[in-house]
């Protein structure tokens, strides 16, 4: 059994975000991290590896420096990694991206017992689309929003979260599962041994040449030009005017606030 874990390197948008004068994101000023939901997918895969000894392969599409992230995941316990990287793939939307990743996994081989794990969504785009679209291209079943995964033979039992509860879903391998953060999933750290060995483990780079003849790729719907969706306009929302900072001691500030709220008939 082999588990492919699809991961993405993203700018950390949880802190202060820097924007260039032209309105685009200043990525250079922000830390690059492993997408948080992907950390859950990695942990779920490594847990299954602990239990069954299966092979875990980290897969990403991105610019060459994403190799660093893949080495980190190997240091956490993955066996090997695949970096899909080509200028022709740049600017791909989710439809285009999923074709390329599906083609790469198809080329590497998806066996009867194999599974693909993804994070539910990435914090830079927040689309949650690439996982299900990979599953569709590979014609395998999907389960999204997973917090628990158990496997016996080819049968996989998944806990799938809903807004007001959860479903237990039984699915046949090969399948694709997207994982979310949950307090029961604690992503592990890199080990010292892992760090020592991570550069000696296999890391394959798949470029345009390697994938362009794959049957799952349509060359006219990949990259910036081919992607079905395009950006029509991008803009920054106007900042709401800065309000009033109340002054004085805590008591004075609170009394002032309550007074103002009363005048506005809020209370």
């Amino acid at each position: 059994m082999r588990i492919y874990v699809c991961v993405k390197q993203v700018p950390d948008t949880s802190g202060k975000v820097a924007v260039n004068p032209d309105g685009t994101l200043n990525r250079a000023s922000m830390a690059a991290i492993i997408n948080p939901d992907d950390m859950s997918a990695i942990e779920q895969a490594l847990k299954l590896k602990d239990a069954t000894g299966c092979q875990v392969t980290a897969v990403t599409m991105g610019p060459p420096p994403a190799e660093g992230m893949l080495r980190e995941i190997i240091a956490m316990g993955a066996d090997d990694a695949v970096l899909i990287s080509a200028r022709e793939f740049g600017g791909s939307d989710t439809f285009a991206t999923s074709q390329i990743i599906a083609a790469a996994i198809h080329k590497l081989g998806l066996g009867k017992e194999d599974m693909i794990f993804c994070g539910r969504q990435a914090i830079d785009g927040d689309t949650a689309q690439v996982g299900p679209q990979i599953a569709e291209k590979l014609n395998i079943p999907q389960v999204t929003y997973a917090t628990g995964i158990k496997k016996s033979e080819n049968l996989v039992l998944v806990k799938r979260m809903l807004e007001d509860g959860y479903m237990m879903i039984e699915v046949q391998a090969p399948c694709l599962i997207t994982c979310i953060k949950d307090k029961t999933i604690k992503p592990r750290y890199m080990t010292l041994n892992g760090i020592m060995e991570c550069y000696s483990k296999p890391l394959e780079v798949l470029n345009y040449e390697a994938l362009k003849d794959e049957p799952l790729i349509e060359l006219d719907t990949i990259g910036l030009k081919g992607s079905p969706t395009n950006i029509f306009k991008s803009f920054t929302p106007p900042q709401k005017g800065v309000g009033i900072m109340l002054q004085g001691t805590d008591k004075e500030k609170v009394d002032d606030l309550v007074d103002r709220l009363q005048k506005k008939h809020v209370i």
Partner: protein
Amino acid sequence: MSFNSADINSFRDIWVFCEQRDGKLVNTDFELISEGRKLADERGSKLVGILLGHEVKDIAKELGGYGADKIIVCDHPELRLYTTDAYAKVLCDVVMEEKPEVLLIGATNIGRDLGPRCAARLRTGLTADCTHLDIDTKKYVDFLATSSTLDISSMSFPMEDTNLKMTRPAFGGHLMATIICPRFRPCMSTVRPGVMKKSEFSQEKAEVCQIVMRHVELSAADLKTKVVNVVKEAKKMVDLIGADIIVSVGRGISKDVEGGIKLAEKLADAFGNGVVGGSRAVIDSGWLPSDHQVGQTGKTVHPKVYVALGISGAIQHKAGMQDSELIIAVNKDETAPIFDCADYGITGDLFKVVPLMIEAIKETQNA
């Protein structure tokens, strides 16, 4: 049957996928039908809802009351509960035959599972979690004039453009992007719950809405997943989206998590029937369950009063609350970005300030 997503002139009408759970329509259905009506009027086309389920014919009419001209009902025992396999098969089959120009889906946990699967099968684009939609370019330009920092007067727009213009927050809400899907149909969008305004229900419109039952073909070979059981969590449901008063807590409660949440609850009660929300840090730390999360990855709220306690105001949080009618922020750090969007800011320790607030509010109510 020939279906070619690139033959864009053969596609007509605005469609809404109407979700049901336990045989009941969900709120996003009414929001999307109301929004869909607006788009259909801009395009001069029909608004059609498509409802999948089992024994759901009787609930379909209500959708007409919000503006649907027609509801297509796909009824089958295998559609009673949502499964990706069955729903994607049925929805795609009908879409391939009827060729709608636009297909809107609520961005719920179910919609965001179904949407991308269908878009990939239909070979078309999908825009996730949209917060604003336009077809008419003039209306879109008016929207930009009030909701962006762009200098509209110096720009030119293709006024004849009839693509659906789908606007959504990107990069944690710091940038807004308007996306189009010009070469393929249908134009697909998942729409964030709680953002589109539900219109007034009209019994008259509900009466004239056409209900069409559609034959469904599903075989065992189509179903590779099985729902073993569904568990409703007994926890108290928080209705952040519908709340008038929200008191949210952030990392600032870390020195006494339980005490901080108690204070927020008491303050919410003092304002009257408020609910407690949390920032991403609070949810990620497991201090509050995820249905309390406000922000880009959580819920978008616009209550009458939003109180932010110990929340620094990361862009991703602001994206979910900055449209609240009145914002009050309490934070120790006077440079916290939350103060940039607050109407009233108090620099101070929330554990000292909030008890004073509760007391002062109660006093005015007793006076």
